[in-house]
């Protein structure tokens, strides 16, 4: 029904906080946290990223938002292993700001490329 979001952060708390913040303006979008390492420490977990992408994908695709560079590397690797990589996009956007913009676009029924564009537009609501 809508494009989903996977929120990849080095911190469990950041990922979960971004999910709650973005969900506020996009209650019907699947926004899934992939924060921290497998044991909840600071870092990224391939398995959490893979699971978040799978959970966020209802068939219309997933936009992945990342914090630092190594989160991007992990997300790219997950994409290599994905069954339907054509439905996954890694946004080149700041994590929090991009996630909110992407969530609002997805809530409005935007397609995969439009949601990526919203994330990357750098719009900052004031």
């Amino acid at each position, binding site marked *: 029904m809508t494009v989903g979001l996977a929120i990849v952060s080095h911190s469990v708390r950041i990922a979960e906080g971004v999910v709650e913040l973005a969900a*506020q*303006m996009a209650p019907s979008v699947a926004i899934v946290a992939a924060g921290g390492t497998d044991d909840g420490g600071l870092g990224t977990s391939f398995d959490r990223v893979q699971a978040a992408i799978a959970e966020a994908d209802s068939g219309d695709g997933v936009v992945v938002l990342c914090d630092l560079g190594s989160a991007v590397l992990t997300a790219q690797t997950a994409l290599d292993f994905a069954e339907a990589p054509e439905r996954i996009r890694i946004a080149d956007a700041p994590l929090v700001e991009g996630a909110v913009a992407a969530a609002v*676009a997805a809530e*409005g029924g935007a397609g995969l490329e439009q949601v990526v564009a*919203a994330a990357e537009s750098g*719009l900052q*609501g*004031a």
Partner: protein
Amino acid sequence: MTLDGAWTRRWVEAVAAEVSRRKAELTALDRAIGDADHGENLDRGFQAVLGKLDALDDGATPAAVLRLVATTLISTVGGAAGPLYGTAFLKASMAAGDRDELDAPALVEVLTAARDGIVARGKAESGDKTMVDAWTPAVEAASAAGDDVRAALAAAAAAAAEGAVATEPLVAHKGRASYLGERAVGHRDPGAESTALILAAAAETT
């Protein structure tokens, strides 16, 4: 009708009552094009104001009441409306100065200062689909209304209400609604509506 400190206090109490009564409506407007909290935000703020009004001197000036509203809203609202209305009431308080009561020219000064404070804080222009779209017509109507404060307040309230309605066809360029692009069209801006509420309460306070 004399716009003295006691009147200012009655007005603020009336705003608190109206915000409380229309909280769900304001939040519903914010649900459509924002984060569904504008009514709760303002209600939290004005309830906190009510709790502090008693601590004021009986002879408090309009400026003293306005300043109390400002600092309380800034500390308690929790959303964009906090710094925006907070700044408005603060600048209004400064414009009121040490006057014991506001005549029509002073009222226009105070309303203008409030509007200018919001614009300075939020950088919104007219037509950006924000509370500014209610404030600016209100200021203009009040200054065109002549020397009768009652007429000035009535004109301001009517213009703010019209300004709020006029935000409906607009795309937003400030605030959360700006994320929505065209999807904001057809929805009234919650902050413009709460501005209309605040000024309607002023017109109705005797």
